[in-house]
C-alpha cells in the first residue's frame, strides 16, 4: 500500500499566524452577519509561509462557488466552506501570485459587472441592433 492511498492526513498544530487570521475572519464574518459590513484581509502583507498558506486554505476549504477571471492575468475566486468568506488570488503575467486576499462579503466586487461596462455594453448592443440609426446620428454629430 502506498502512503498516498491511506485516507488519513496527518497535520501538525496550526501556526500562530493561521490562528490569528482565523480569528480575524470570525470577527469579520460576525460583522457581516449582524451589520452587513464587508471586510477583507490582505494575505500578502502577512508573514505567511507556504505551509501557513496551505494550512489556511485547507482549513477554510472550498464551498459551492468558484470562478476564474481573465483580467490582466488570471484571477481565481472561490467561496470557502464558510459562506460569505471568499478567497481571491490574483496571478501576474508569469502565473505567480501577485496579490491575495480573503474577502468577507456577500459577493466579491470582482464578480460583479462594473456599472461603466454595463453602460458601454448597452450602447454597443443598441448600435449593433440598429446600425443605420447609429451611423445616421454619428453623421449628424459630425456635421454639428
Amino acid at each position, binding site marked *: 500500500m502506498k502512503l498516498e492511498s491511506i485516507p488519513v492526513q496527518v497535520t501538525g498544530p496550526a501556526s500562530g499566524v493561521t490562528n490569528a487570521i482565523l480569528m480575524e475572519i470570525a470577527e469579520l464574518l460576525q460583522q457581516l452577519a449582524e451589520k452587513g459590513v464587508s471586510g477583507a484581509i490582505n494575505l500578502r*502583507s502577512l508573514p505567511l509561509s507556504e505551509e501557513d498558506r496551505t494550512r489556511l486554505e485547507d482549513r477554510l476549504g472550498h464551498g459551492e462557488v468558484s470562478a476564474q477571471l481573465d*483580467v*490582466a492575468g488570471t484571477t481565481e475566486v472561490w467561496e470557502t466552506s464558510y459562506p460569505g468568506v471568499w478567497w481571491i488570488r*490574483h496571478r*501576474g503575467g508569469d502565473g505567480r501570485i501577485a496579490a491575495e*486576499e480573503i474577502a468577507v462579503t456577500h459577493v466579491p466586487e470582482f464578480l460583479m459587472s462594473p456599472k461603466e*461596462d454595463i453602460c458601454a455594453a448597452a450602447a454597443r448592443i443598441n448600435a449593433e441592433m440598429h446600425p443605420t440609426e447609429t451611423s445616421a446620428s454619428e453623421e449628424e454629430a459630425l456635421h454639428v
Partner: protein
Amino acid sequence: MSDSKTLGELLARRGVSRRVFLKYASYTASLMALPPAMTTAMAQGLANARRQSVIWLSFQECTGCTESFTRSFSPTLEDLIFNFISLDYHHTLQAASGYAAEEARLAAMEENKGKYIVVVDGSVALKDDGIYSTIAGISNLQMLEETVADAFAVISVGTCAAFGGLPFANPNPTGAVPISEIVTDKPLINISGCPPIPEAMTGTISYVLSFGVIPELDHLGRPLAFFGETIHDRCYRRPFYERGMFAKSFDDQGARKGWCLFELGCKGPITYNACATQKWNGGVSFPIQSGHGCLGCSEPGFWDKGGLYKPLSAGIGTAGQYIAGAAAAGAAIGAASAALARHRKNKAMKEG
C-alpha cells in the same frame, strides 16, 4: 503626450473592462500594505485619472534604474503602469533624438504645466559648472532646474538621485549631489536602491495617480510602505541571528546551512528596503537568499561605509576604527554600534 480622456475611457476603447483597475488596485494595495478597503477608492481614482505625463531625466547614472523599471515586468498585470503614464521624455527609451527629443520635453512641460511628474535617476555634477555631465549642450543642473520649474512633483529613483550614490562616493571627483540638494520647493519622493525595487517605483507612481497626493514618507523622503522596515526585520534568516548562529565564511558549514550573514558584512540591520518581502526577478530571490549579505544600497553613503564585508559590529566609516579598537580591547559593542550607525546615517544626510 497626455490624453484628455480618462484611463477608464482609454482602456475601454481597447476592450479592457473596469475590472482591470480593481485588480491593479488590489495588487498595488497589497504591495503597499494599504487597507483592503482602499482598493475600491484606488480603482476609482485610477479609472478617473488622466494619463500622467512623466518626464524622466537621466544624469550621472548607469541606467540600472531604468533596467529595473522596465525589465522585471511580465506582460500583463505589472506592466499596466505603462498604460497609466505617458512617458514623454526618456533618453534610453524614446525614439526621438537630438533636437526632436528636447522639443518633446519642452512640449510636454508646456502642455502639462503644473501637472507633470519629473523622475530623475542619477546625481547632478556641480564641480566646474557641471561640465562633467551635459545633455543637449546644457549641464544636468540647468536641465533639472528648467524641467522641475512647473512640475507637480519630483521622484528621485535610485540611490544616486536620492543620496548621491556612487558618483557621490569619496573622492566625489565631479562634485556630485543628490536631487534634494537642488529641488527644495517641490514635493520630492526618494525611492532609493541600486537599483530600486521596480514595484516601489510603480507602486508609488500609482498611488500618486490614484489619490493625487504623495504617500507617507520616512525622514529620508522614502515611501514608508516600502522603506518602513529594515531588511533584517523581515529576513527569513533572522531566527539564526537571534540564536547567535552565524556563517563565518562563504563556504563554511554555517553558510551551507543558511545561517545569518551578519559576520560576513550583511548591512541588513541598518538598511531600510523591501527586498526581503518583494524580492527580485518576479519574487524569485534577494541577495541574502542567494547567500550574500545585504550591501545596504538603499542607504545614504553605502559605498563609503568602510567595507562591504566588514561586520557592522566592527563599526562603519571613520568612527568604525575607534569601535574596532574598542572591540579588540574586549568591549561589548553590538547594540552601541547599531545605534551609532543610525546616528551616523542621519548625520551623513544632514551633511550631504
